[in-house]
């Protein structure tokens, strides 16, 4: 047992070591060595992480605590740095490590064309991995928040990695700011948890939930159930990180970062942190039914919204980004009906196929020399046979075609939504099915546009070449994952053995039987998602292979709808007017009038007045003795007056 805990700790600390060595010493040791160090650390960490998983598998998951250090010890508040060893954290860690290792490996090939040194990139990647591992292995909310902010920081650094591109830096700032907005709610939620439970440790919070169920929180004269408020606030935090509707705007822009980053952070791991948080906080969510309704609503709506927008995007990476957003919506909908295990299952399978899709897209972009517009590609399938193959696998998994990974997880979510049997969950089921159709459509739109259609630029097509070994090996491995992970993991994550597998690390309240009942749905309902997916594929074939003029005609005839979708439902424009412009105006006022006018101006004027006063004061000092004597006598008169009249 002890060995597993040590392996687990090593798995989490090794990426930090890699990040520190490569980040601080990269300039000295050079790129090659820095790459080697981070890859080696990641490799070792992955081995350790899988070892820990194996150990937990064979001898039980505890939960155990791995104390590393004291952190905060102030007054009544005590926080330590302790790793939590349970099924959820260990499986998540293993998943993060596997994907991260593959992305590291892939990056070696992908970043080989950079003119600038890239040790920084690898250090950031490792730093991100460490922060993500901190997030999933935390044993209290403060640690979780540390990891949460750590991944946010790494995300900011990596989105803005090409700091000489204005769009990249703007996107980085946007991602950071939108996440800060959500984090404010999150930290207030943590604060309320501390107020209610006098602790931030999971064990203590979860143990005290039954006693706290009746607590109320009064704000502006209204009373709300305290736990609902807390869960609501935590969910808003999760919405920001997981790019749910209203706080999703940063995710498409984040595609300005290098493609491996998009694969690792903005598809497989970081954006799923919100889902992880919800699963982690399942004991709290179980007693907050109203918040869960809200979660279903947001999840389902995001799911649908993102899919519609994804249909019309010309940019290959943005299409996949909206797809991610959409899939995250599925996961939240599952959380909302209490099927946390299903959400985590979809999270895991999604990590494989979405990373695969992104890396495949990266491979295309790499081959096309940084071309991202799908309409300028085409006919690549012969030049990039491996990429073509894995993209097919990824798309099949994403669309949920049997027996690929997505089939198992997505169908489970839709079944659970049906089985939950509520008005909100039916709404979610309906949107989910429509989205399944849309998903298949935009996935094959992507495939057809990139690989089959007549090439827009033949010379460029002919110059394209398959990616090097460093890039193709991860693609193959992820493709294997995308094929088999659903089949292999389903029994443990959501199947008959789930409660033995999770060992209580995900909590279902006694009344919550969704995990037992979600399989028992009518056959039509179970088949429908696969059916609509096939229809979606067929429609894509019709639109982009059979009669290529159709999409354009449709776009012209339904102009407003098309523009509405192309402009992502005008969210950016809306926010620009509601938040950004007034805020900029306030900031400008504070800068020009407040800061430069008053804060700087007042001392500046005072200094100027003092200096000129000083010059005037000295002007009296003429050296004339008569004036001196006169001054004395004048002073005498003044002083006398003061003394006699004062």
């Amino acid at each position: 047992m002890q060995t597993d805990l040590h392996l687990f700790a090593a798995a989490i600390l090794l990426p930090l070591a890699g990040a520190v060595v490569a980040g601080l010493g990269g300039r000295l040791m050079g790129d090659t060595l820095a790459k080697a160090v981070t890859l080696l650390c990641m490799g070792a960490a992955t081995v350790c992480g899988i070892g820990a998983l194996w150990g937990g598998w064979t001898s039980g998951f505890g939960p155990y605590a791995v104390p590393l250090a004291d952190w905060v010890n102030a007054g009544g508040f005590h926080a330590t740095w302790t790793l939590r060893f349970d099924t959820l954290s260990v499986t998540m860690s293993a998943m993060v490590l596997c994907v991260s290792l593959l992305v590291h490996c892939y990056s070696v090939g992908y970043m080989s064309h950079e003119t600038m040194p890239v040790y920084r990139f690898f250090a950031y990647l490792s730093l991100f991995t460490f922060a993500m591992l901190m997030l999933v292995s935390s044993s209290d909310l403060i640690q979780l928040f540390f990891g949460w902010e750590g991944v946010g920081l790494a995300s900011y650094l990596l989105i803005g990695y090409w700091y000489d591109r204005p769009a990249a830096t703007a996107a980085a700032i946007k991602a950071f700011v939108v996440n800060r907005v959500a984090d404010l709610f999150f930290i207030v939620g943590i604060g309320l948890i501390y107020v209610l439970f006098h602790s931030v440790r999971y064990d203590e919070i979860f143990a005290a939930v039954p006693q706290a169920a009746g607590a109320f929180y009064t704000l502006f004269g209204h009373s709300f159930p305290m736990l609902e408020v807390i869960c609501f606030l935590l969910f808003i935090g999760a919405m920001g990180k997981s790019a749910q509707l209203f706080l999703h705007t940063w995710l498409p822009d984040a595609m300005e970062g290098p493609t491996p980053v998009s694969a690792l952070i903005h598809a497989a791991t970081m954006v799923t942190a919100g889902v992880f948080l919800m699963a982690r906080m399942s004991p709290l969510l179980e007693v907050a039914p109203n918040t869960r309704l809200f979660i279903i609503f947001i999840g389902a709506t995001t799911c649908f919204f993102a899919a519609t927008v994804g249909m019309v995007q010309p940019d290959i990476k943005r299409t996949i980004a909206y797809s991610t957003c959409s899939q995250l919506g599925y996961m939240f909908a599952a959380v909302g009906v209490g099927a946390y295990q299903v959400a985590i299952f979809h999270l895991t399978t999604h990590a494989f196929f979405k990373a695969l899709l992104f890396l495949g897209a990266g491979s295309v972009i790499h081959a096309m020399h940084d071309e991202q517009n799908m309409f300028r590609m085409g006919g690549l399938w012969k030049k990039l046979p491996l990429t073509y193959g894995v993209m097919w696998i990824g798309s099949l998994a994403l669309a949920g075609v049997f027996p690929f990974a997505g089939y198992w997880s997505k169908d489970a979510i839709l079944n659970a939504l049906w089985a939950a049997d509520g008005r909100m969950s039916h709404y979610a089921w309906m949107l989910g099915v429509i989205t399944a159709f849309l998903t298949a459509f935009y996935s094959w739109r992507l495939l057809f546009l990139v690989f089959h259609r007549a090439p827009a630029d033949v010379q460029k097509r002919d110059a394209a070449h398959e990616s090097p070994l460093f890039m193709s090996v991860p693609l193959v491995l992820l493709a294997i994952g995308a094929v088999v992970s659903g089949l292999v993991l389903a029994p443990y994550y959501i199947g008959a053995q789930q409660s033995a597998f999770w060992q209580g690390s995900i909590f279902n309240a006694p009344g919550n039987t969704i995990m037992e009942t979600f399989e028992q749905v009518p056959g039509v309902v179970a088949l429908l998602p696969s059916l609509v997916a096939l229809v979606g594929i067929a429609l894509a074939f019709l639109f982009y292979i059979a009669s290529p003029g159709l999409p354009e005609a449709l776009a012209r005839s339904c102009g407003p709808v098309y523009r509405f979708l192309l402009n992502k439902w005008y969210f950016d424009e809306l926010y620009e007017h509601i938040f950004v412009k007034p805020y900029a105006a306030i900031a400008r006022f504070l800068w020009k009038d407040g800061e430069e006018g008053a804060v700087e101006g007042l001392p500046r004027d005072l200094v100027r007045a003092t200096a000129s006063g000083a010059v005037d004061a000295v002007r009296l000092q003429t050296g004339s003795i008569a004036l001196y004597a006169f001054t004395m006598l004048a002073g005498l008169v003044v002083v006398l007056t003061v003394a006699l009249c004062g």
Partner: protein
Amino acid sequence: MNAMSVNWILALPEITLALAGLVILVFGVLQRPGKGIGACTVLSIAAFVGCAVLVALSPDGAAYAGTFVNDSFARFMKILVLLGGLVALLLTVSYRTDERAPLPFETAVLILFSTVGAMIMASSANLMTLFVGLELSSLSIYILAALERDDVLSSEAGLKYFVLGSLASGLLLYGMSLVYGYAGTMEYSGLIAAIQQTTALPVGLMVGLVFLVVGLCFKLSVVPFHMWTPDVYQGAPTPVTAYMAGAPKFATFALLLRVMSGPFGAMAPRWQILIETLSILSMVYGALAAIPQTNIKRLMAYSSIGHMGYALMGLAAASTNGVRATLVYLAAYLVMNAGVFAVITAMRRKGREVTSLADLSGLGRTDPGLAAALAVFMFSMVGAPPLAGFFGKLMVFAAAWQSGLYVLVGIGALSSVIGAYYYLRVVKVMYFDASAERLDQPARSLVFVSGSMGLATVFFVLALGPLMALARQAALALGG
């Protein structure tokens, strides 16, 4: 009057010092011209040290038919005065005029006589003693200021100081005559009785008091009676400037404190506003006018104007605490002021004295030790903790605050901030400006003085306990 009531022993330090002065004068004048200067200085230093011992041992009491008093306040001030004189003497040791000539042997003798006068001031118990002491001190300084006869600035300084000083003495005398006229006595004890007896204070007495204060304020270079200060400080030979900025100021403060809290103590509510006004004027003017200065001696003149303003705050408080605060402030001022002038005396290039602020450029690199000492003094003058100046300022501010003079404290704090600018500018010039040509290696006596004063400034806090106890005792002796 008989021999017994004279009580010689009380004035023994003054008598000793005066006799020593005469002996040294005879000794010096019997040498061939230009010889024996060093011997005279050494003898004077010995006389100072001996005198200081005698002061420390002298008993309490009144003498000479009540015109002379010795108490712990007088002892405290005399020690300060002697230290101030001693430092000035030490600075003369290595001082050379621009013609490479040392100051004449009379310098030591004059400083010595001036110090005798200052000590008499500290012990005065009668307006006559006050005047005699003041004039003995002042007349010596008039000559000292003009010691470099061939130097235009020095002669000008002497003449200006003499003319304006005469005017001030006239005002002082006139004030004294008014006081005498309305109170009928010149003895402090008599004045106390006379003032306490009158129900309605005669205006003439108030006018007399104002004239008296004005006369003393001239010596303190308090605004608006400060006009002589920059010119005289700049023109006089640097050791003499160091002397002027020290001993006479302490003695005059001794007088002011004794007169105001003794004979005129009962009138405190009437003169508080007067002192407050003078204090504010000095602090603000000292801070402002120093800013455009480019000559460090002029700068120090304005600095001393400002410092006198702060010291007056303690007097304005009109309480035992206030007097104590002023005494501590003066002690701190003595230490850092002496240090600054030691550094200024050391400012020489190729044998010639330089006094421009720009000559300090890059001193932090060319002479780190001297620069560090000057930086310490400047920070202390600003009032940065934990240096000497901080405690002085803290105590006078606290005393004024306790007496409810909030406006005074506010303006004091403000002018401290303004003053910080020009003090720190010196530090900036030393450490951040391009190096000027190297200064000459400072003489050992100057290194000793600046070093010891630097240590005293830094470790002032260690002596703060006993010092405050002594100052408190002195203040109590005064308050009676």
